[in-house]
């Protein structure tokens, strides 16, 4: 046994002093409260009567004394922070790295998870280490700086949970003499040979959704289709029940017989009407990892975009945009324009005095205090250069003739397309709480209304403004979002902390599910799923052949001092309860 806060002789001395103090306190006679009685006559009769004492009455004083001393001893032991370490503790620096990949959540044959085994081993290592201990995970890096206070390490361990991090860099602590890596080896890592690897691996059967998403229909009358891939990473065949839901309705439910190691794909047709939220779920008898049993996806374009067209004379623009069934257009005159909080607004050759507060498309905008000002006119501009921004995806510039273009300058705008002479044709602004697209040409000055690229450009612009697609992440972890991102809401409805950089917002999405992204009035959704062949196949490990120390199952996992404190409180409670009833002294 080792002691975390003092030398062994000091610990023994402390325990002895505590026991002696408890014994002395027990011996001290407290002056009893005075109770006046009518007469002592009856008490004398009772006390003078030779009464046979029960066995408990004879021993109860000794039992109380023993319990009191035991309470003092266990509390004193808790102060010494005892641990199972053998031999004297060294004074070096120890780094404990926990593999926090999702495969660590797999359940073992004893019912505990690999993570629980790893945590128990981390506690044991921290208690026995001596000197400074640092704690890190593969997902979060260093979570507790080197400290000699084991309680801090314990507290940090309690906060941790599997959260991915399969691809992150190896955490390093300067001056670490010993490095312990507790892992199941499901994610292959190249580690230094000096690192002591503790394996919590135990082969486990698992069934997982390894791919899930929605896409436009490839054939038939359906508006789209959901595709799902299920794999059986078990050594025996399994009957797997697969359910696909759209919103609150189940759109597909069937059982699939999967051979050992087999993966099957299914396609579920999606009707035009219905919610955008898709969820797939599998159930199987032998399934050790729950996190990959559900997968989420989002149908882009399932909800129509509300568009407000502000124009004195919209001309063909309203009809052209309104012909898209996924867009709902409302036309207002500039004089009737009122700021609203929903959808996208299109300003046709006019701008309000104040920023619109929601995503906006400005067509041939005038000078504005909040946006910018016009520069030189260019006649018969040729659109020759384009970028790979989503607004320009699929737009053929060669079919567009521009008779007149007026350059527009703004600090918040970044040109995506320019004319041959360098006049900006299409610019975007994606800054904090502002999401804008500016076309520097009026529709009347171009043949755009008749050009094949117009529906694509208009659709791209409205999609990017009002319903940006963030796609589906195959693993939880950090994601880069546009600078205009103001809020990310987790599947549980909690806001996700955001880190702002110069050109992006970074959010860490820790759990599977659908995350809602608010960016300057636009609303997008990110689906995060755990299921992945790399993670879900929890029957294999990359540790085979490596010198590893296998972590045994079982045990409380809690440090001894916590057990000592718990025992002390139980004994105090028992003493108090029995003392109240005069069962003990």
């Amino acid at each position: 046994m080792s002691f975390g806060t003092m030398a062994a002789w000091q610990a023994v001395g402390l325990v002895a002093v505590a026991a002696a103090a408890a014994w002395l306190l027990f011996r001290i006679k407290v002056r009893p409260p005075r109770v006046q009685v009518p007469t002592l006559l009856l008490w004398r009769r009772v006390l003078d009567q030779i009464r046979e004492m029960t066995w408990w009455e004879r021993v109860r004083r000794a039992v109380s004394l023993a319990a009191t001393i035991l309470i003092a001893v266990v509390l004193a032991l808790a102060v010494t922070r005892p641990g199972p370490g053998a031999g004297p503790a060294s004074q070096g620096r120890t780094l404990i790295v926990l593999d926090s990949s999702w495969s660590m959540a797999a359940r073992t044959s004893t019912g505990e998870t690999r993570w629980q085994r790893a945590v128990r081993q981390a506690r044991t290592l921290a208690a026995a280490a001596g000197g400074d201990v640092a704690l890190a995970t593969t997902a979060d890096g260093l979570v507790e700086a080197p400290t000699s206070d084991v309680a801090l390490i314990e507290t940090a361990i309690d906060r941790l949970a599997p959260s991915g991090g399969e691809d992150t860099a190896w955490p390093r602590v300067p001056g670490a003499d010993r490095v312990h890596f507790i892992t199941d080896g499901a994610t292959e890592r190249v580690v230094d040979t000096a690192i002591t690897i503790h394996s919590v691996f135990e082969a486990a059967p698992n069934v997982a959704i390894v791919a899930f998403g929605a896409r436009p229909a490839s054939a038939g009358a359906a508006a789209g289709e959901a595709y799902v891939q299920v794999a059986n990473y078990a050594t025996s065949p399994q009957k797997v029940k697969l359910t696909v839901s759209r919103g609150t309705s189940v759109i597909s439910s069937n059982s699939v017989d999967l051979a050992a190691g087999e993966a099957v794909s299914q396609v579920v047709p999606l009707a035009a009407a219905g919610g955008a939220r898709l969820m797939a779920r599998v159930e199987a008898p032998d399934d050790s990892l729950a996190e990959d049993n559900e997968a989420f996806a989002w149908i882009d374009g399932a909800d129509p975009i509300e568009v407000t067209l502000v124009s004195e004379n919209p001309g063909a623009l309203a009809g052209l945009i309104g012909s898209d069934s996924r867009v709902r257009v409302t036309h207002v005159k500039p004089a009737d324009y009122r700021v609203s909080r929903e959808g996208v607004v299109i300003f046709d050759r006019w701008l309000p005095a104040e920023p619109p507060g929601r995503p906006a498309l400005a067509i041939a905008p005038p000078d504005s205090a909040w946006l910018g000002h016009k520069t030189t006119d260019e006649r018969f501009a040729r659109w020759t250069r384009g970028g790979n921004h989503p607004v320009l995806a699929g737009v053929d510039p060669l079919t567009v003739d521009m008779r007149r273009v007026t350059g527009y300058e703004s600090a918040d705008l970044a040109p995506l397309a320019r004319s041959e002479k360098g006049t900006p044709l299409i610019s975007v602004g994606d800054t904090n709480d502002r999401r804008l697209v500016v076309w520097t040409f009026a529709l009347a000055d171009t043949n755009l209304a008749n050009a094949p690229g117009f529906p694509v450009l208009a659709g791209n612009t409205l999609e990017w403004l009002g319903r940006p697609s963030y796609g589906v992440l195959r693993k939880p972890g950090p994601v880069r979002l546009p600078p205009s991102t103001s809020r990310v809401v987790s599947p549980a409805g909690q806001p996700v902390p955001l880190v702002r950089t110069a050109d992006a917002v970074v959010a860490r999405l820790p759990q599977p599910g659908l995350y809602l992204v608010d960016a300057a009035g636009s609303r997008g959704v990110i689906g995060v799923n755990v299921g992945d062949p790399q993670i879900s196949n929890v029957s294999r490990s990359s540790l085979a052949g490596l010198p590893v120390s296998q972590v045994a199952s079982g045990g409380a996992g809690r440090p001894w001092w916590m057990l000592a404190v718990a025992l002390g409180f139980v004994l105090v409670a028992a003493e108090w309860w029995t003392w109240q009833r005069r069962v003990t002294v």
Partner: protein
Amino acid sequence: MALRFEDDFLKKLEYLHVVSKRAFVGQNRADRLAPKRGRGLEFADHRGYTPGDDFRQIDWKAYKRLGKLLLRLYDEEQDLPIYLFIDSSQSMREPAKFDQARRIAAALCYIGLAHLDRITILPFDKVVGQEVQPGRGKGRIFRVFEMLEAMDTAGPTNFRETFVKFATRPRQQGLAVVISDFLDPNGFEPGLKMLASMGHDIFVVHVASQADRNPGALGDLRFVDAETGDIRDVDVTPALAKAYGEAWQAHADELASFCGRYNLGYVRADAEEAFDTIILKTFRKGRFLA
């Protein structure tokens, strides 16, 4: 404590009267049958005329029929001497218990006064204190109230000494009511035996409270004898508390058994019990009041 009864209750008390198992010779005319012939209203017997008898008592109708001079004899109706012993020792110091004892004494006084009985109130501890005879008639009850209200507890209990002192004065035999908790370190038996040997009809009212029956608290306690000041440290365990309760019950049973053996009336009046219930029900059930 203010000893006042409501009018309704007093009216109910007036319908009651104290029952004595024996008839006693009183001093004054009243409505209670005395064990001698006298000038009452109830005809009792005839006897032969002897010179010197009152002519007015001769039964002339009997003379006409029998030719003999016979005298009509009537029952004598006199008052009943009632001696009310009230334990005012320190063992009665608990307010609930002492108040109950004084209320019972006041009620019995009122019943006695209403029937013109001769009441003597005798507070006692180790000896009899100053005795009070309020007089006759229910109007004297206020004097009784004042006397009982002024009464306080003091000293230890000693039944034997109390009744020895009581016996030092010649007294008419009558009904002796002893209101006490009967916690006498020397025992209650010698005193009650002595009182019975004086020819009184004895009625025992055993007043007890919850504090008497149950120690109330558990743990290390320092018990102080209210009468003697003696101290005893006791670690009261549940078993010991139970044994104490049993000892008290044995004491109460012993008193009741003693009263039965010596033909003494016995009623238990717990301090927690409603006072009017004790008077109107318990005492009637114990055939002390009718």
